[in-house]
């Protein structure tokens, strides 16, 4: 251990050199630590993102296969619109998939329409009423035909576009209202009463919009009647379980058709929506959505689920867009932080090697004396290594206290850049409108409102903002390891010179 004592004595005697080494090492370690903490924070945020967002898989009718089937069944080159049909999803199959591992939550959706009965009048304008009650014959005929086609042989009846002439309300049958993205994103919220939940299966409970409730002087616990979309004489009494308000304004279509007005959306259990569709729809749903606890295992989940269904009739659509959106900026930050660590570490090795090499040139005489006394070259190298390690320990302490500050400053800037970049990308791409992407599902697609179930970009933004940069013992340990590695490489590279030194040459020159 004599070399350690020599190292300590040498450092004490050469205070300037020791200070320089400590300062350089501190600078290196501060930046390495900043990189490590940012990287670690980004990884933690990614893990949290996985937990909070998950990924969703939607089970619905295989529209593509149905279209192909429709084409095959006709001899002409263009498909016959009348032959197109979708098989409703079996509730039993949907429940089997829900029982698979990795399902964090799930929800079923069945959408339908209903007419206004006793005790309720839909929100509408005068002209709108005209439109809904006395539409042009051509238009009515066309829609009725489409409607009939849609309702025939147990198809997915009830797409909003199919009910535009005679329906007053869009009925969204759900299993858990809180899972709808409108509600989870805060676009809609329950103002009184409770949301539709699994307990409402097989009940006639309903959640209605605040404006609709106020216009009809309805409160939680009140009842009203709606008519069957196919048979106006058939009525159903609904009990108001909750009232919600929505910031959704609807669109121009909503001014013309009552059921497209966001205020005229009734949320019921999926079983009630099925009742409105008729007996053929019993034991079926339009679609089922599953939120997975681990987005990484999505492919495995889909493979397992596909074994349980007829893939010719049904399809599983994966949606981890929110997760991927969230992942991109975090990955960018993590990648940048990793690059910082690598670059600073490499630069550190180079800088320290040069300093140690210069030091060794100054210390040739000392090396010569030690070698002449019979000291091994290895122990001479160990002495220099000890000196570097002592400086590293000092630098490690300095870095531990200041790395947090630097990490936060650099990290904050990175996050701001990434957030701005993400926002800019979103702006450039445009907000999802009602008719595109997400909106397509709302407008009569098999997923209907269920397409909105799952994560949103709001959560992605939150995760980016929530990057928590703090120095943890794990990072300090990693930093110490890296510091030792940097010291080792700088000494190994410099010691090539030491190993070549001959005591006679040194001492005689």
């Amino acid at each position: 251990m004599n070399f350690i004592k020599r190292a300590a004595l040498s450092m004490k005697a050469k205070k300037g050199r020791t200070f320089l080494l400590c300062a350089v090492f501190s600078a290196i370690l501060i930046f390495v630590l900043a990189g490590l903490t940012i990287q670690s924070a980004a990884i933690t945020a990614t893990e949290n993102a996985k937990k909070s967002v998950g990924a969703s898989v939607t089970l619905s009718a295989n529209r593509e296969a149905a279209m192909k089937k429709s084409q095959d069944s006709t001899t002409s080159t263009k498909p016959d619109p009348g032959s197109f049909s979708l098989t409703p999803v079996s509730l039993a199959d949907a429940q089997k998939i829900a029982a698979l591992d990795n399902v964090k939550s799930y929800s079923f959706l069945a959408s339908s329409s209903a007419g206004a009965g006793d005790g309720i009048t839909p929100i509408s304008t005068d002209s709108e009423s005209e439109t809904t009650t006395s539409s042009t014959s051509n238009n009515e005929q066309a829609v009725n035909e489409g409607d009939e086609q849609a309702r025939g042989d147990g198809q997915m009846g009830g797409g909003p576009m199919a009910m535009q002439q005679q329906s007053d309300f869009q009925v969204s049958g759900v299993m858990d209202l809180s899972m709808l993205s409108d509600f989870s994103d805060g676009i809609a919220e329950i103002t009184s009463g409770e949301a539709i939940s699994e307990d409402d299966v097989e009940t006639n409970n309903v959640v209605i919009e605040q404006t609709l409730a106020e216009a009809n002087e309805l409160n939680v616990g009140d009842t009203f009647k709606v008519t069957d979309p196919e048979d106006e004489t058939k009525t159903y009494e609904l009990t108001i379980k909750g009232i919600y308000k929505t910031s959704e304004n609807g669109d121009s279509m909503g001014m013309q058709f009552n059921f497209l007005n966001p205020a005229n959306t009734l949320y019921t259990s999926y079983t009630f929506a099925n009742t409105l569709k008729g007996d053929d729809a019993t034991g079926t749903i339009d679609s089922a959505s599953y939120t997975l606890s681990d987005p990484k295992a999505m492919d495995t989940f889909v493979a397992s689920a596909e074994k349980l269904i007829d893939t010719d009739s049904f399809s599983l659509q994966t949606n981890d867009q929110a997760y991927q959106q969230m992942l991109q900026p975090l990955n960018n930050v993590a990648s940048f932080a990793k690059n910082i660590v690598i670059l600073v570490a490499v630069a550190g090795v180079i800088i320290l090697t040069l300093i140690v090499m210069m030091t060794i040139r100054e210390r040739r005489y000392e090396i010569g004396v030690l070698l002449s006394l019979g000291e091994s070259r290895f122990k001479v190298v160990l002495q220099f290594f000890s000196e570097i390690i002592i400086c590293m320990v000092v630098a490690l302490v300095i870095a531990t206290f200041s790395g947090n500050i630097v990490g936060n400053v650099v990290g904050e800037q990175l996050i701001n850049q990434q957030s701005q970049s993400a926002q800019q990308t979103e702006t450039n791409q445009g907000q999802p409108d009602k008719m595109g992407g997400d909106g397509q599902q709302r407008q009569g697609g098999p997923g209907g409102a269920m397409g909105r179930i799952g994560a949103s970009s709001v959560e992605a933004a939150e995760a980016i903002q929530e990057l928590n940069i703090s120095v943890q013992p794990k990072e300090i340990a990693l930093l110490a390891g890296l510091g030792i590695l940097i010291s080792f490489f700088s000494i190994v590279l410099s010691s090539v010179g030491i190993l070549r030194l001959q005591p006679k040459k040194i001492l005689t020159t």
Partner: protein
Amino acid sequence: MLQTQEVGYWYKNEDEFLYKNVNLTFQRGKMYAILGASGSGKTTFLSLIAGLDLPKAGEILYNEESLKKIGLRNYRKNDVSIIFQAYNLLPYMSALDNVLTAMSISSSKQADKKTYALENLANVGIDEVLATKNVTQLSGGQQQRVAIVRALCCDHELIVADEPTGNLDEKTSKEIVQLFQKVAHEQQKCIIIVTHEQEVANACDAVYELKNQRFELVK
């Protein structure tokens, strides 16, 4: 104890050799002097027998074993102590630490190294106050004495010294020579001194003179 067998040395060309076919024998309990003019190759010869370099020709045997076989570092560590003309002390240490460092490297068997080192330093006039001072604060003569004590404290059987009294006053020089004699005769060590001082040479048991590229026994 130490033998040179047909030793020869040259720097660039063999034709320009410093000496060739040197066959000398050095024994325990004796003090030897090597005399010679400046540039004759005395210090180079000393570096060969001190294990700092290998001869270009021939072999050096220590206790009948070749230095090549022993290994130069092992030889320096365990068998030989060197006193340099330029002292070659570690400048960032005190006199005491310099001695202790050498003792530690040579794996000295002294139980209390510090006391032993301080006693030996005191024998050459370096008291504890001086001993704990940084060597750069000591005079040339004091540094030379520290270098001598460093060599003696390692308890090696062979001590080679290059102009050990060159920086000492006459009185101290005599004292050091007497100390060498005592160590050589009483502790049965072999001391080889390269010098150009006749007085030092006279105090030695045997004297070789390097003249015309040859070693001649003159005493």
